[in-house]
């Protein structure tokens, strides 16, 4: 006898419950909608941080780099010098400590290998674009335009490309070898570079007539004057001049007492460079009108400068550089900095207190730069800011002329320059397609900001680009508090012997661990939690990178939506 013989005698159920379509119990059904992470919204370049970190977390640095390069052509650079607004907004910062995104960007660029992908767009008609200046803005614009298939030519004044990346940032922050490789990756897209060409106004008109579009990214190299007495004397230099002219550094080997005026990244680099090229026992002091905790420079750089023995004083501006044959001291008057409520621009004002006198045999003023207005026709520059005016797409008031980088009114940082180049490239490309920029570009902006998702332009993604995931929307219960992996640095004593790179970069295994700390806010990383936690087995794995909902059986309980660590799933009225 077997089971069949027993079945008529005592209840043995062999039918299946799948005949009951329990999906009819509720209209509510979950749907997957990826959203923007706050780090991405804050990143001017719109880097898809949660996405590339998810691959780095698996050790797939190649694909992580590929994703990184989709939105930002200069990861080796940004991974070293960026002021990382992403980290300030990182949701993990409200859990334990922010993810070391900048270090990870560097690690990915170091350990991964990828070739930037061409982006084919329908109805393509290639344009020829001339770019003036091969700093980060120009390189970025060229990069995206070349990927769109346009013909790009860059005109560079100096012998080598890179602009402020090469001539403004010292090796100990950005080694030249690294920069060269990064720029080659961009140029290898077929971009034409002519260096050693100083474009004046007449040449500019000529270039404009021979190309469809012009992108101006010459940067700002003319130093601001402090307005102090004797500012032009021989022992007083200005910031970028000092940094750019490497050959003349030997001339300062005897200087023992250096005063640097300024509180920004250039000033910090000036101070740290002076420490390395002046006398062995040189004393370097940085003075800026801002309060000490409001210096515009990146906090890590200030920390490293302090470690190296640089003295930093806030709340003063120079009134006089004094000396008979050579510089003997600098007189400084109390000052403060605030924002002009009318223009929103920072302004310096006198403050109460006594003057400060600092002994000095060498002074360098690094309080910012302005553009060379010789190049520009009337009307291009904005009188208040001395910058070129551009609209939301990077267009100047002149026809077929775009601008970006430090030249325009935005934060004078590398990643902002990259963003301006990217934005202009897309606008130029859409213009070439005769597409409506007003219609296409705004939806690509991330969250409430102006960063663009190039990925979403190329590939229609099922993402809500305007929704930014807040910390309170995450389910962090399955994460444990762990300290971040911080890059090691060379000891200060060893550092100042020369210009070797100060930060060592994360080791590969630590980079993987640090990438795992990323919550991947708003992105589905296929963690399978929704799949595993459905009591009705109604989350289906389709074999692609997406999950589907089995509406025939889903009871709308919303465990998946409530539990998703990344807030990807929401409940809706069944479709």
């Amino acid at each position, binding site marked *: 006898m077997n089971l069949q013989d027993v079945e008529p005698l005592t*209840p043995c*159920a*062999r*039918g*299946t*419950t*799948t*005949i*009951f*379509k*329990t999906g009819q*119990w*509720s209209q509510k059904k979950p749907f997957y909608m990826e959203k923007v992470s706050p780090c991405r919204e804050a990143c001017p370049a719109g880097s898809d941080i949660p996405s590339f970190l*998810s691959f780095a*977390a*698996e050790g797939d640095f190649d694909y992580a780099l590929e994703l990184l390069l989709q939105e930002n052509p200069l990861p080796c650079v940004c991974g070293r010098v960026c002021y990382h607004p992403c980290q300030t907004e990182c949701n993990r910062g409200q859990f334990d400590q922010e993810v070391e995104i900048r270090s990870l960007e560097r690690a990915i660029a170091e350990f991964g290998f990828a070739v930037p992908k061409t982006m084919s767009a329908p109805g393509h008609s290639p344009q020829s674009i001339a770019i003036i200046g091969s700093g980060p803005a120009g390189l970025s614009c060229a990069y995206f335009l070349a990927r769109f298939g346009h013909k790009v030519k860059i005109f560079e004044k100096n012998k080598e490309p890179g602009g402020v990346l090469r001539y403004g940032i010292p090796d100990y922050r950005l080694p030249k070898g690294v920069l060269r490789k990064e720029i080659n990756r961009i140029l290898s897209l077929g971009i034409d570079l002519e260096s050693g060409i100083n474009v004046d106004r007449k040449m500019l008109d000529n270039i404009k007539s021979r190309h469809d579009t012009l992108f101006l990214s010459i940067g700002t190299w003319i130093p601001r004057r402090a307005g102090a007495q004797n500012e032009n004397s021989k022992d007083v230099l200005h910031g970028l001049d000092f940094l750019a002219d490497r050959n003349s550094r030997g001339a300062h080997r005897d200087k023992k007492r250096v005063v640097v005026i300024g509180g920004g990244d250039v000033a910090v680099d000036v101070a740290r460079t002076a420490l390395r090229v002046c006398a062995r026992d040189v004393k370097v002091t940085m003075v800026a009108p801002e309060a000490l905790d409001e210096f515009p420079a990146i906090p890590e750089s200030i920390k490293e400068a302090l470690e190296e023995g640089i003295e930093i004083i806030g709340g003063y501006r120079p009134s006089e550089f004094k000396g008979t044959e050579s510089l003997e001291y600098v007189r400084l008057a109390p000052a403060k900095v605030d924002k002009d409520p009318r223009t929103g621009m920072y302004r310096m004002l006198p403050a109460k207190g006594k003057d400060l006198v600092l002994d000095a045999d060498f002074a360098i003023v690094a309080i910012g730069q302005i553009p060379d207005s010789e190049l520009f026709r009337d009307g291009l520059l904005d009188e208040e800011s001395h910058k070129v005016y551009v609209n939301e797409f990077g267009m100047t008031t002149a026809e077929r002329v775009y601008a970006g980088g430090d030249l325009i009114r935005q934060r004078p940082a590398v990643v902002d320059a990259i963003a301006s180049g990217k934005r202009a490239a897309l606008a130029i490309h859409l213009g070439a397609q005769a597409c409506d920029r007003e219609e296409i570009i705004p939806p690509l902006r991330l969250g409430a900001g102006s960063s663009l998702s190039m990925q979403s332009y190329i590939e229609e993604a099922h993402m809500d680009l305007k929704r930014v995931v807040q910390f309170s929307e995450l*389910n962090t*219960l*399955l*994460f*444990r*508090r*762990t300290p971040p992996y911080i890059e090691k640095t060379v000891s200060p004593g060893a550092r100042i012997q020369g210009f070797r790179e100060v930060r060592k970069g994360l080791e590969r295994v630590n980079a993987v661990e640090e990438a*795992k700390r990323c919550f991947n806010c708003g992105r589905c*990383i*296929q*963690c*399978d*939690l929704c*799949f*595993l*936690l*459905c*009591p*009705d*087995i*109604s989350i*289906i*794995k389709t074999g692609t990178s997406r999950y589907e909902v*089995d509406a*025939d*059986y889903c*009871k*709308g*309980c*919303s*465990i998946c*939506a*409530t*539990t998703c660590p990344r807030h990807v799933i929401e*409940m809706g009225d069944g479709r």
Partner: protein
Amino acid sequence: MGSERLIRAGHEMGQKEQLRQGHYACPGCGVALTMRLVLRALGKNTIAVIPPSCAASVAGAFPNTSFEVPIFHSAFEIAAASAAGIANALEIQGLNDISVVAFAGDGGTFDIGIQSLSGAADRNDNFIYVCLDNEAYMNTGIQASSATPENVWTVTTPDGRMGRKKHFMEIIAAHRIPYAATASIGHPQDLIEKVTRAQQAYGTRFIHTLTPCPTGWRMAEGLTAKSAMLAVETNVFPLYEIINGTRYRITHEPQKLPVKEYVTIQGRYRHISDEGIARIQKEVDEEWDSLVAKTKGCA
């Protein structure tokens, strides 16, 4: 060790699944979810034993079943004895690669089922006993059991239960069975790993799972997994193993969140006072310290 990151865990669909769709569990049912995960881990060569309980309702009504594996419907108080009988029968027939698993509720384990479980554990009969603890007799309408925590509302303790929740892991440890563990559906990786480890051992193996019940705990249906996670992260329900009744091993380091976060999302704790919460916090902290002390000197 408990997962901080579940990435591309590669969980298979299809034939790994031993629970079918279309079962009649309430939306958000913790019992259905637990059985699904346990059966996934155990696989096709399994015979389940289920007493009258919510689990039995999930398993189906004649002539349909929601399980891909055979089920024996035991009497209420003897899931363990029935599982033991089947385990011995299989051994006698030389069928040594079939796992026998009993799914019993807290009532059928802590109260009326304790004698039968104790007897089976004493004999070290070869099966896995999974206690689906939703902290009350839910199938009959939310009556209190000895698994109901102090202060909790049920229909038979409308002013909040007076006694403390029975410390069942200690009772089972006293039987010196080869493997005992706590598990939670809020930590599915940990649960699956424990079931797999249990499956590889021989003898009576006990897994105490916390299976929140939105209906009985008076909370939104979607909070099932999250409340289980909170139970673990607040140390109300720590995740650990006891080997041979003496070796303790904590399998998940909790975040040590305040118990208030766990208590306040459940309507069954609605009338608890601040002093009540403080008392719970104190007990939870003491229990945790005591658990940690037990792990000292264990490999």
